[in-house]
């Protein structure tokens, strides 16, 4: 009896050890990337979500008709080719055949029309209506793999605007009874599994993915570590293989670490202060120019992003973009700034409130630097740094003197100039309005030839830089840090976080 008593636990122990060994072996043969994201996703409805943290996930789960490749050139994705009608009022997209959603259903034109109509439907509350042709666009299925879209006015750049996961094609079953997408059913290389609120999830390989041999990983285990130091420690301690960002001040030290690879790429983004043109004295162009001349962009860059940036002395587009324009008049010139202020009748300066947001500390640091720089030309500034939700409300209702913010994920020149600067456009929160500028950016939408468009936007850029509704500070840089065994990941200037070609070596 005693022997039997001993054998049972011994057997159990052996089973346990063997089981643990087998599961470890299975884990070893599985390619699983452990990735720490820096912020919790704010929902996974691609048509509604607006945060970078949501698209860090969604970029791997859903796909759009067109996309930008790693060199940011427009390329086919779910559509194989497209053409515009002669009158310019409609586009035809031919869809890729043999594409399946993660639930196994084949993607057809019906799904495309459903998704585009969901974006246009005001009840969805999507901020991307302009990207699918505007509220009056009509999407129709012509065959199982062909769709057309008709717009009231010619739209030469629709395929460019569609190159965003925010216009993703999803399966109808993604939408729950409340009209919300909690977990999208897409055609992307991964599917969402084990979703735990907004703190962790597993992206599992989509077995139905249409690109042969992809994705290379079996899964990505995503956790959220908001604190910079803890995220860095998790990477260095081997708890995770990959982090979506580190504190900019830590980059230099990490670059010297042999076990770590630091990727840095110039960001298609810019940081700026928007001036309220509906208020005095910012309605006077000389005052705005004075502010543009007064600031030292290198100091702002050091304070805001610890030197990981390229200063902008004119328009918002960095030298790395094909849409960079040379016009750059605003090198720091304090005397000229003072003279402009005097000419505008503000020789003794004036009081100004700077509005960064406490949610993004880089904007607060920039405000502190601006305070000193504007003080040098007699502008007496105070800083009001509300948190994000309140900030958005103040900005949206023009209740500010100057707001400090950034624009991200811009690829085409249209993204830079149209919606943020054209009269009464939804992105224009400074009140800037100039018919000459409007005419140019309207014309830019009708043209698809690069050189022709370049010439148009070059003029628009100059008008804008001279009018200074925004003072552009600099283009920041994106950073990703990973263990040396993580291969194939490409850090892109549009910040698209794609795990599809990533794999683990060794």
């Amino acid at each position, binding site marked *: 009896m005693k022997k039997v008593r001993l054998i049972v636990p011994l057997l159990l122990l052996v089973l346990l050890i063997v089981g643990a060994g087998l599961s470890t072996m299975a884990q070893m043969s599985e390619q699983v990337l452990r990735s720490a994201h820096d912020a919790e996703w704010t929902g996974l409805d691609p048509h*509604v979500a607006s945060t970078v943290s949501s698209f860090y996930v969604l970029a791997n789960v859903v796909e759009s008709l067109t996309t930008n490749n790693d060199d940011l050139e427009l390329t086919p994705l779910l559509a194989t080719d497209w053409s515009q009608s002669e009158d310019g009022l409609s586009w035809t997209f031919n869809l890729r055949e043999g594409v399946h959603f993660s639930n196994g259903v084949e993607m057809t034109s019906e799904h495309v029309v459903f998704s585009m109509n969901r974006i246009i439907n005001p009840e969805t*509350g999507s901020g991307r209506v302009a990207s699918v042709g505007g509220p009056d666009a009509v999407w129709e299925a012509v065959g199982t793999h062909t769709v057309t879209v008709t717009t009231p006015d010619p739209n030469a750049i629709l395929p460019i605007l569609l190159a965003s996961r925010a216009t993703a094609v999803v399966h109808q079953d993604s939408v729950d009874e409340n009209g919300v997408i909690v977990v999208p059913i897409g055609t992307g290389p991964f599917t969402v599994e084990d979703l735990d609120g907004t703190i962790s999830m597993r992206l599992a390989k989509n077995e139905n993915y249409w690109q042969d041999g992809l994705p290379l990983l079996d899964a990505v285990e995503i956790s959220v570590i908001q604190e910079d130091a803890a995220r860095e420690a998790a990477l260095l301690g081997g708890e995770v293989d990959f982090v979506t960002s580190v504190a900019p001040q830590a980059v230099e030290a990490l670059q010297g670490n042999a076990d770590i690879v630091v990727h840095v790429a110039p960001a298609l983004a810019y940081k700026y202060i928007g001036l309220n043109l509906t208020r005095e004295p910012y309605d006077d162009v000389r005052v705005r120019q004075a502010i543009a001349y007064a600031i030292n962009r290198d100091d702002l860059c050091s304070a805001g992003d610890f030197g990981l940036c390229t200063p902008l002395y004119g328009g918002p587009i960095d030298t790395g973009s094909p849409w960079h324009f040379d016009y750059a008049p605003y090198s720091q010139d304090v005397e000229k700034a003072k003279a402009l202020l005097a000419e505008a009748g503000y020789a003794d300066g004036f009081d100004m409130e700077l509005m960064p947001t406490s949610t993004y500390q880089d904007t607060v640091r920039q405000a502190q630097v601006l305070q000193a720089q504007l003080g040098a030309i007699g502008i007496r500034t105070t800083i009001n740094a509300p948190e994000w939700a309140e900030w958005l409300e103040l900005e949206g209702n023009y209740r500010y003197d100057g707001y400090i913010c950034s624009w991200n994920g811009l690829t085409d020149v249209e993204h830079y100039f149209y919606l*943020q600067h054209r009269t009464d456009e939804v992105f224009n929160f400074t009140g800037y309005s100039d018919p000459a500028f409007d005419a140019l950016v309207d014309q830019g939408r009708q043209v698809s030839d690069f050189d022709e468009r370049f010439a148009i936007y070059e003029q628009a850029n100059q008008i804008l830089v001279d009018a200074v509704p925004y003072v552009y500070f600099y283009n920041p840089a994106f950073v990703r840090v990973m263990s040396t065994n993580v291969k194939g990941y490409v850090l892109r200037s549009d910040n698209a976080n794609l795990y599809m070609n990533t794999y683990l070596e060794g």
Partner: protein
Amino acid sequence: MNYQYVLQRLLSAIVVVLGVTIVVFIIVQIVPGDPARVMLGPYASDEAVLGLRERLGLDRPILEQYLLWLGRAARGDLGQSLLNGQEVAAQLWGRIGPSFELAMVSLAIGLAIAFPIGMISALKPGSVVDVVATLFSQIGVSVPTFWMGILLVIVVSLNLGLLPPSGYTPIAEDPGDWLAHIILPAFTAGFVSASIQTRFIRSAMLDVLNANYVQTARAKGLAERAVVVNHALRNALINIVTIIGLQITALFSGIVIVEVVFSWPGLGRLALNAVEERDYPLLQGAVLVVAVMVTMVNLFVDLLYFLLDPRIEYV
């Protein structure tokens, strides 16, 4: 034990919880910031924001919104998160366990530090131990929690590689890993808690040690150990339990920063995000859970008084 008293307290707890939900509901409406605008980002059109407000029911009168919420909550339906569409109740349920575990381990660490130090410094006031204990308390109260947390991450995790810097493993899944992950956050929260408790234990003990009945006990010739443990400590416990109760409620609701620094999936971090994103249903749900927990702890502490000192009568 007076069961009528317990029933009365339970009823008043319900009133308190209801009151808290009303206050929070009003506050979130008054505070600037619109969840629809937060969801759609800085560049959304007014039409899109209005459309989303309508879909979320935010365009209805506040009273209607509250009564709707209350009606559903009474049936156990706390609604869906505005931002991610997930069930609020399910999200909260997943966070209660980690929050409770962290609060309890923090409290245990806090008491393990505070009790001996507080007792010794009360028994030997003005001694070196007392001076050091006072200094320790001052440091604990003054050091910001986030700084302490980050310092521990850098020294213990990064430099020494002793413990993981962040994350959580359920205790049922791997008790060893759970312990490894909870030590740093619990120590960070417990350290601050300990410094407050040390002061309270010291002053509570000092009060009773100077009381006449303790002098009498000594005069009777009782051993010092018996005087301290049987006469002084027993009476000091009433005050100590009060402060421990307050500490537990603070730990339940107030260790947001610890949770953020160590990526601990607790209620505090959830509530903080809900506030930042103006996710009203999630915030209401989190407040409801914390309010219930806090009133329950308070009730438990009150009942504990009765056990500690039978002279206390509840009316």
